[in-house]
């Protein structure tokens, strides 16, 4: 039977082993990385994103983030309308500024989650809370259903609120909220 100390030690041991297996993992995963040299992105007349990669042109592709809340610049999956992956982008730095900007715009379209800059009012009644808040998209009024599932902490400080219609709002850092605002937000967490 392992003692507590022994168990805590084993944790650090296993970290060493994982580096060797990482390379094997990479070979098995076979990710096709797109960079500025092998892929050209452009915006079509219909306002969609198109990419020419390895000689093939895909007329409408979408940018999917692996970590939409914590990392929007790395590990982006470029997929077409049938959800087939054209390739992955290891980092936006692999592209020139104009392309990076274009990709960021596309991510803004796909992931619409306005940031709440100020909570104006919150009223709780009958199992729902009625919010009014200033956000990066304008002043929004939304209704959140009570129960923990609608306000989730995706990181230690980033809170995503889903309203009854499926709209999402994010508070980037709950630690930075004013006292009053924090108390309002707390009731739905």
């Amino acid at each position: 039977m392992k003692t507590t100390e022994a168990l805590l030690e084993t944790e650090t041991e296993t970290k060493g082993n994982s580096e060797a297996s990482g390379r094997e993992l990479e070979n098995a995963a076979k990710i096709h990385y797109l960079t500025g040299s092998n892929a050209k992105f452009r915006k079509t007349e219909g306002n969609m994103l198109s990419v020419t990669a390895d000689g093939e042109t895909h007329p409408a592709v979408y940018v999917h983030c692996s970590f939409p809340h914590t990392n929007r610049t790395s590990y982006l999956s470029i997929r077409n309308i049938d959800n087939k992956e054209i390739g992955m982008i290891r980092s936006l730095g692999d592209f020139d500024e104009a392309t990076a900007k274009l990709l960021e715009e596309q991510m803004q379209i796909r992931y619409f989650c306005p940031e709440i800059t100020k909570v104006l009012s919150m009223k709780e009644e009958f199992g729902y809370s009625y919010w009014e808040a200033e956000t990066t998209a304008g002043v929004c009024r939304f209704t959140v259903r009570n129960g923990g599932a609608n306000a989730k902490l995706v990181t230690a400080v980033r809170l995503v609120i889903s309203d009854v219609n499926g709209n999402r709002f994010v508070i980037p850092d709950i630690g930075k909220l004013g006292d009053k605002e924090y108390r309002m937000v707390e009731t739905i967490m």
Partner: protein
Amino acid sequence: MNLNYILSSEDRQAAELAVGSPIEYCIPANLSILSRLSAGYFVIGEQHWAYVENGEVLERGAIADAGEYKMVPLVGSVVLEAEEAGTKRFIVRATMEHAARFGYLAGVLNDKAAQRKVRIFNNEEERVCVECGGSLIPGTRACPRCMSKAAAFKRLFSVSKARWGGFAIALTVLLAGAGIALLNPYLLKLLINGALQPAEGEASSMTVFYWAIGGLVACLLVGELMSLIRGRVMAKVSSSIAADLRKLVFDKTQSLSLGFMTSQRAGDMMNRITSDTERIRHLIQELCTTAIFQLIILVSASILLFQADWRLALIVLLPAPIVAYMHMYIWKYVLHKLFHKLWRIHDKANSFLHDVLSGIRVVKAFGQEGREMKRFREYNGDFAAMTIKSERLFSILSPITNYLIQLGQYFVLLLGCNMILNNQMDVGELIQFSTYAAMIFGPIAWLMFMPRWIANAVISIDRIFSVIDEQPEVVDDKEPVKHPINGGIRFQNVYFGYKSYEPVLKNVNIDIRQGEMIGLVGHSGSGKSTLINLISRFYDCNEGAILIDGVDIRSMKQEDLRSQIGVVLQETFLFRGSILDNIRYARPEATDLEVIEAARVANAHTFIINLPDGYDSLLEENGNNLSGGERQRLAIARAVLKDPKILILDEATASLDIDTEMAIQEALQRVTKGRTTIAIAHRLSTLRSVDRLIVLEKGVVAEVGSHKELMEKQGIYYMLITAQRGMSKSVKGQPQLTAAVEP
């Protein structure tokens, strides 16, 4: 669902000019491409569409120029896209609450572009309140803000009318009890003034003393007796009303259509039948006992106070509401929030514990014990800190609130004693006065909590009555026909979608002969299970008709129709009870022999007879004490006992091992002889034994024919089969395992 929003006059003018015709549909497209909320609207005219914002037309186009209009849901917003000149184009964007509207309009645009009749079945209800625009309570048509409490209570009243006798008795007893409670202080005064502290010059009278004491004791006894009677009567009344409500709701759930029931969660329905009715029962009991009692006491005591000494009364009564309010404030806001926080941390820690302890196998397999111990330390620490904090706060606040309540009494004492010393009052009067004063605070504080508590009960009332009021979607004809089925099925131009703007089946025309075995094939999501739901008339098709032996199923009684159709689903559902009960569920009047025969046909008899309790073996919830294959065979036995003319098999052999599958296949061969069978099948073995195959692709009948014909055609069916065969060939040295086809 509102598809015709009213535009401002400048918007409307601009829009009409842009589309060149009167506006047919108009919905908000309130999100710009740069992610700002806007007051934009998407407008459809006869042949053009336009996007107008603040009187300006920002974009327009001809509908026929593009095709394949689609509402694409993104993360947190929706986008209307179309295909134009071989490439996709973006049209407008909106926030999530308009998703369904765009779904409809995409359908409209597609119909217009293809010059088809615009097919729109706008019967989806708006999810928002028509008066205030807020969301409705899910599963009801009530808006929490605009809900009229009076209306809810009226409904409750109509249901409880039948028990008025009990109410009358309870009320009488209540009044009597209140009267006695108020008599108490008076007797006390008599006691003190007459015997203990008589006025100057008067001798203490033992007679008065004994009478007073006797009176007090009698009051106590009678008061308790009243209380007892009241409790019993109200318990009976409120429980009966709750039972009535539960019966109404449950009966309704049985008669409502599958569509409504599947749109609700089973747990939600259960809550309405159990906890919501319980809340109402509690409300009735409390309301008709404690609430009225408190009110009477409050009013009478106040009157008596004023009668005794209006100055003192004022001093007592004025601060009372303020004190009660503070008491409520502290409780509701400070303490409640505190405990809510504590509860949250407790909940998180608990979930963590539950996770780790039930998943201990995974923890050990990945060697993460150390990590979990660390995490527990954190949670544990947080919880302990929070408990200390809240207990500390509670220990300070609790005495404060109690003290505030008692404060009034000290004032009374202060002033009263002063008045006694000035000979304006005697001791007895003071005691009487302070007893009445003490009676005031309780009711006030209690009544402060009533509004919230009534509001919660009103929600429960609404949730219950919303089920009772719900109309079933699939209704029997006024004069349903009784038609013994022979087994011929025909689909005529059938269109159907669970959400009417998203048709799952389009223009389906099928003719199935009596006794034929049909295999239904297609990719997942192509509409196979939907087709089957329609045959059983769990949903009515939007357009077209389904005929059995030439008779429209809508003209038949639902129970009659379904009693002649047997269904074996992919996921079996068995009820609690013995195996015998479960098989007999199909036909309760079947004899034991018939049950055994059905089990033999289904190849279930062998394993049942080997069980220690045989057919009397008790099944746990959903038959979890049997294996998947055994449960499946019981379901087949159940279907067989019904002796249906039409048998529906929905992937009845998915996820079973090869031996079990062979046993079941063999059983099915026996079962399907002479019956019209429709089997959704993925296994080659099943497919080979069918007479004909119907291939569905994206909701449309793509191919029809026998296995041989379709293989020669080399169409979709051919692709599915070769993909399956390819998969099984690549597994060397193993018997031809057939797996479910994935797109």
